């Protein structure tokens, strides 16, 4: 499969240029996204009711499509895969607020419908008129790699020609509290952001590079979550790593980048 467009948003801002900059940060103090950046996405795509997580997902999704030359038009034969560890947990907890603060029969339906994991995928699909497979995935170990591998399976099956693959995490009370609740497993705050890759079965768009997935044995060597690379010790590490590798490939036809399964949180269950 080929990477034909890339999009991203992080604390550094919207755009892939900020990914390169983030790589240089040995420690990022402010790991949350500027709300003005998200507001611009919400206004542009009429996401009045959508939550912050959806705006984070949309920011990279529309950028990846535009990067490949698709702008606000129907994308036939395209699927969406979104991978996230915690998903829209700010909205999940907003719904718990309702349950805690109000009688059970007076909670808000809109909060509930936006608290489900696939709400963001629904907004991406309707905003970009994507009508192919739409899959929302969660997990804490190899989630990005497994999603990349699944993208390849979908493309090879012929059921669609493109997959818009998005990795996303949102900072909120739970993810911000992880270092204090589980300091051994989460030594620092998570990054907030999203990375989107428009993957295609044939070269098109920016045609950054071909990409192949290689599954390593489950008991293989794992990366050090205390790495000095700020983007490596995070759920989004795999997504940032893949995008950076593609950007570094220099749009040279015939190049292939190889991604291994990395088990970013494998250290977690070793400690519990």
């Amino acid at each position, binding site marked *: 499969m080929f990477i034909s467009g890339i999009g991203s948003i992080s604390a550094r801002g919207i755009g892939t240029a900020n990914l390169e900059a983030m790589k240089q940060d040995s420690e990022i103090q402010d790991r949350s996204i500027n709300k003005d950046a998200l507001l611009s996405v919400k206004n542009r795509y009429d996401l009045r009711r959508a939550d912050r997580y959806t705006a984070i997902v949309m920011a990279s999704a529309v950028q990846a499509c535009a990067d490949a030359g698709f702008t606000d038009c129907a994308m036939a034969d395209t699927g969406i895969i979104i991978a996230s560890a915690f998903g829209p947990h700010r909205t999940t907890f907003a719904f718990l607020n309702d349950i805690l603060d109000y009688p059970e029969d007076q909670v808000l339906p809109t909060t509930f419908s936006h608290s489900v994991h696939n*709400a963001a995928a629904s907004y991406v699909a309707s905003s970009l008129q994507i009508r192919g497979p739409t899959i*929302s995935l969660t997990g804490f170990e190899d989630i990005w790699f497994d999603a990349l591998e699944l993208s390849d399976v979908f493309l090879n099956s012929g059921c669609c020609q493109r997959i818009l693959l998005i990795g996303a995490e949102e900072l909120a009370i739970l993810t911000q509290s992880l270092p204090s609740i589980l300091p051994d497993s989460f030594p620092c705050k998570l990054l907030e952001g999203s990375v989107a890759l428009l993957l295609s079965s044939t070269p098109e768009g920016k045609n950054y590079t071909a990409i192949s997935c290689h599954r390593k044995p489950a008991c293989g060597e794992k990366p050090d979550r205390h790495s000095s690379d700020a983007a490596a010790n995070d759920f989004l590490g795999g997504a940032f790593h893949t995008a950076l590798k593609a950007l570094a490939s220099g749009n040279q036809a015939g190049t292939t980048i190889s991604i291994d399964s990395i088990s970013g949180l494998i250290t977690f269950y070793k400690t519990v």
Partner: protein
Amino acid sequence: MAQSSPVITGVGCISCVGDGYHDTSASLFRQPICPAPSILTDSSLKLPVFELTGFKSEKDQPGGRTLALLRHTLNQALVQAALSPQELASLRVGVCIGTTIACQLNNIPFYAELRASGTAPAKPLINFISGSPAEWIRREYSLSGPALIVSNACSSGTDAIGIASMWVRSGLCDIAIAGGADELNKVPMAGFHALSVCSKSPCRPFDRDRDGLNLGEGSGVVIIESAESAKKRGISPIFSVAGYGTASDGFHITKPRPDGSGLEQAVNCAMQTAGIQASDIAFVNAHGTGTGTNDSLEASVLFRIFGSSVKYLSTKRMTGHTLGAAGALEFIFTGIMLSEGKAGPSHGFENLPDDIPVAPLTSQIPINGKFAMSTSLAFGGCNSALIVERPG
């Protein structure tokens, strides 16, 4: 033309229909039980639900009751497939599980403490992360393949089985463990009630007087492998996953696209994968929740694709809507009906309304065909279909 279809060699299932393959096979053709208000959750809503009151699960365990239900059915499936942990660990085995509850930290006491003090005990968080069902199974059995949780709302179980079948079909995995599980929980009960889609009486899918769904709980797991792998292991297939299709409405977060084109595309894609035509489908086990919008749209699409002679039913009156488990359980029910050579009736249906073009099955009928279909529609505009094939 379709390649050799991945086969099912093990089935595990628990719902208000029955516990295990044989119990479920026997009970599937009997009168359903009546739903009743929950006694295991602390919900104050007196909604009728299909609750597994006889299934006991320990509190404060990884993955909670949902993982307990899943483990129960996984054990059943592995026994039927004659797979030992040693054999599993030596093969390329993937795990794909659909759920809506186990992928969200809906622990209200934990959150109340976190909200009040900014910190909370670690145990519930550890149980949530380490109990993520697909990864829990991968660790428990030392598996080397992918482990994915599909959280596509009500089509999660269907998509999990569809994805796992694609892994096997593509050669990525020798064997896949797939299915869906969800427990009854205060959060979806409050949420679905707020959406005004819960009936105060037993649900009536496709009926003139339908007024909503009943929630339920359950789990369904299947062992999927290539026909060659099953033959090599000397295991007879129970049935096959002949096709899978999924498509997005690209329309609205809760409302289905009015023209039904998303569901139509999913059904056509599934038939294309299977290399068959609409006339090859003996019957359809529809999503059929008992809500006004779902049932009228789904019946209209089935009529458009299969014509006026379409044979279809819903099993929601027997299980309730088990959310992430629904697609997996209904795939299994479809396979059992096909294997037993009979289907129906669609319990809860009595009178044909104006917005349903053709009635579902009103009595049990013999089935001679080789293929049947199970469909799922979900929040977020996800539409998915699986085609089951009878062996031989």
